[in-house]
């Protein structure tokens, strides 16, 4: 008896599967995260996968394929079938910045479809709140007065925020000492201990709430909501500003109907209450862009970074 129930249930499931096979999605979707578990990128990706699973009604398999500064994971995504069942998480650095500096196994302008953006993180220039610096003007004045004595760091060496800040110093003709970083947390400790005077990092939330640091400026477009008085680099007339995004990508040649499904899904997720709460709590801002808008944005950023790395002699 039970045997027969199982068999008929199975038959039902199989035929149902065949009937909707035309519709995307009908089977589990693999989301490749090109970083180790635990970072903000990994946490938000898993959140997006969880929500998308509810909306689309299929399972999501989140795979961490870390290594090579995210090149390995993104490359395995770029080489998958463009059927919508393999997508990957992307952030700014391996797409618009590092391919200019170091050989990437994929061409960000040819091998990927940009599915959509869901988050923009702020990358402020911060200093200790001991009154040494209260504005970027102070910083520039100090750097010019004492060449080479201003020490600073950025969470990702040769990432967008690093290059944007370097562009500011070069535009002013100021010579500084950049100390390579071991990640945002260590840089925050170095800032508080006086090893460096300035840091460009995104995970500064607790220190700001505790009044240990002040935000002097913002390296990405748009002011930081937590420091509405701190100007952005382009407001001050400096040459480079770069959005720090989290988004999704898929292999090149993703069908239009799959793109349409994702445009809709990501929009729904970013508008949900859970998403807003999560963003508030990790102190960033959700920022939805459809596939078309995101692609245009990525291309523009890629070109801007290409020019900037050439200008500063950092290009490969």
């Amino acid at each position, binding site marked *: 008896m039970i045997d027969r129930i199982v068999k008929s249930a199975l038959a039902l499931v199989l035929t149902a599967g065949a009937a909707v096979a035309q519709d995307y999605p009908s089977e589990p979707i693999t989301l490749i995260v090109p970083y180790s578990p635990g970072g903000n990128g990994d946490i938000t990706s898993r959140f997006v996968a969880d929500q998308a699973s509810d909306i689309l009604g299929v399972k999501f398999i989140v795979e961490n394929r870390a290594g090579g500064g995210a090149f390995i994971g993104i490359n395995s995504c770029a080489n998958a079938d463009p059927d919508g069942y393999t997508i990957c998480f992307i952030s700014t650095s391996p797409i618009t910045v590092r391919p200019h500096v170091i050989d990437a196994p994929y061409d960000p302008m040819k091998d990927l479809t940009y599915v959509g953006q869901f988050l923009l993180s702020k990358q402020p220039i911060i200093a200790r709140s001991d009154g040494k610096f209260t504005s970027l003007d102070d910083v520039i004045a100090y750097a010019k007065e004492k060449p080479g004595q201003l020490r600073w760091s950025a969470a990702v060496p040769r990432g967008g925020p690093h290059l944007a800040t370097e562009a500011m110093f070069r535009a002013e003709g100021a010579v500084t000492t950049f100390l390579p970083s071991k990640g945002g*947390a260590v840089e925050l400790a170095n800032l508080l201990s006086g090893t460096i005077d300035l840091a460009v990092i995104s995970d500064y939330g*607790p220190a700001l709430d505790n009044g240990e640091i002040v935000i002097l400026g913002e390296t990405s477009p748009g002011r930081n909501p937590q420091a509405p008085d701190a100007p952005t680099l382009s407001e001050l007339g400096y040459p480079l500003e770069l959005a720090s995004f989290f988004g999704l990508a898929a292999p090149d040649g993703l069908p239009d109907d799959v793109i349409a499904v994702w445009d809709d899904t990501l929009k729904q997720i970013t508008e949900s209450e859970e998403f807003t709460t999560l963003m508030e709590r990790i102190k960033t801002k959700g920022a939805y862009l459809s596939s078309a808008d995101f692609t245009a944005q990525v291309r523009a950023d890629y070109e801007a970074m290409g020019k900037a790395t050439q200008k500063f002699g950092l290009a490969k």
Partner: protein
Amino acid sequence: MESILAGISLALTWESITAVFIGLLAGQLLGAIPGLTATMTVALLIPYTYYLDPWVGIPMLIGMFKGSLFGSSVTAILVKTPGTPAAAATVLDGYPMAQQGKGEKACKMALYSSVFGDGFSDIVLIFGASFLAAIALNFGPAEYTLLVAFSLLTMGFVSGAKVWKGIVAMLLGMLIGIVGLDPVTATPRLTLGFLELEEGVGLIPMLIGFLAIAEVLRQMELPRKHLAMSTVSFSADPADRRVSWPEFRRCLPTLFKSSSMGTAVGALPGISATVAAFLAYNEARRASRNPEKFGKGTLEGVAAPESANNAVSGANLIPLMAFGIPGDIAAALILSALLIQGITPGPVVFRDNPEPIYAIFTALLLANLFNLLLGHGLIKVARRVVAVPKRVLFPAVLVIAAAGAFAMRGSVFDIQLVFLFGLLGWGLTKLAFPTVPLLIGFILMPILESNLRVSMLIASSVPDPLLYFFQRPAFVTLIIVMLLLLALILRRVLRDNSAARASRLKEG
């Protein structure tokens, strides 16, 4: 005071007690599986803690970390396969003990040491977080460089085997440690064109290959009849199955010293539990009256790394609670879980909203108690598992080692690395090179290099570099302490040499 009591009562609800219990149980089991580190499991669980209250979700994560540190030492002792890198130093004396039939004793010592280290650093965290964190902030790149350089220097003197072999092994370890992106210029170095090597040789494939695979290869060389036996026999003598009070008391100085070292390391952002375990092991051997017994199965050799690596886990929360700076990945995960819950650690939270923090502290202490209780159960289970014959166990170890290496970042390359390092480890053992200096060199080299080079960059940025460094109180203190320790070591080396000469003369 009211808020402390409120915090404690939050943690003593049945939800959070169950959460700690489940976290600990899962941590111990997962910790025992190589490659499945607590960090990874916790990362996978964090999205779900979003739906739990902070005093339920966070204690679960903490329980998991604590459990996994002990769970991983059980496999380190019994099968020479550290479940997580932090237990690699436990292999050094734990495995020889297991070979002598004292596996249960070693596991129990590891358990008591783990709980001791945990309790020690938790108490330091609860009562001295802001004080210690302020001291830790005096440690900049120059001080890190001094600390690491000194650890490597003392290695050469106390490595046990022939001094030149110890130094060669250490240099080889350091060479493997510099593979990857150059820390200053960010250009690939010694990667042979492999993208997978740009972030350096993975700690997990290196340790699993070097310890577990090398051991399997060594066993394969033994005559066939060995294969039907189980890898460890358990002595029937009750004295070999438990840790007696006099034995524990004898280890107490080591436990206190190692726990303090672990706590200090944990308070410094960026140095891992693995480093602390090796440093404590090294120091225990240096300070011991019978350093020659280390590596052959001495109880102190288990107590030192086990108490140190667990002490790191509590102490990592020191910079987190004091300033909101996570000391390592584990603390970073707890930070993101706290932030997701809307709690920002730091001085402000103690003033405005301390209940959840006190609840977390209570959960820390509760987790230690459960670790002790559940640990005994895990030892009993593990005893049965390793009782299977070698011809069943070792193939299983090979598979688990490969799967563990793969799981970390989904990379087939890492599986190849495991076997490559297995061959290397086996070859070096054949040639009687010591293992410890190689592992320490490998683990410390990246820390030494990046801090040394950053220190040099700092030196070039200040008008008077010597003045800059010698104005730093921590720098001067460290130099004085190290010179004193160096004098002690040299005196001992000289005394040993003259004693050896005297005994040779007598024999001659």
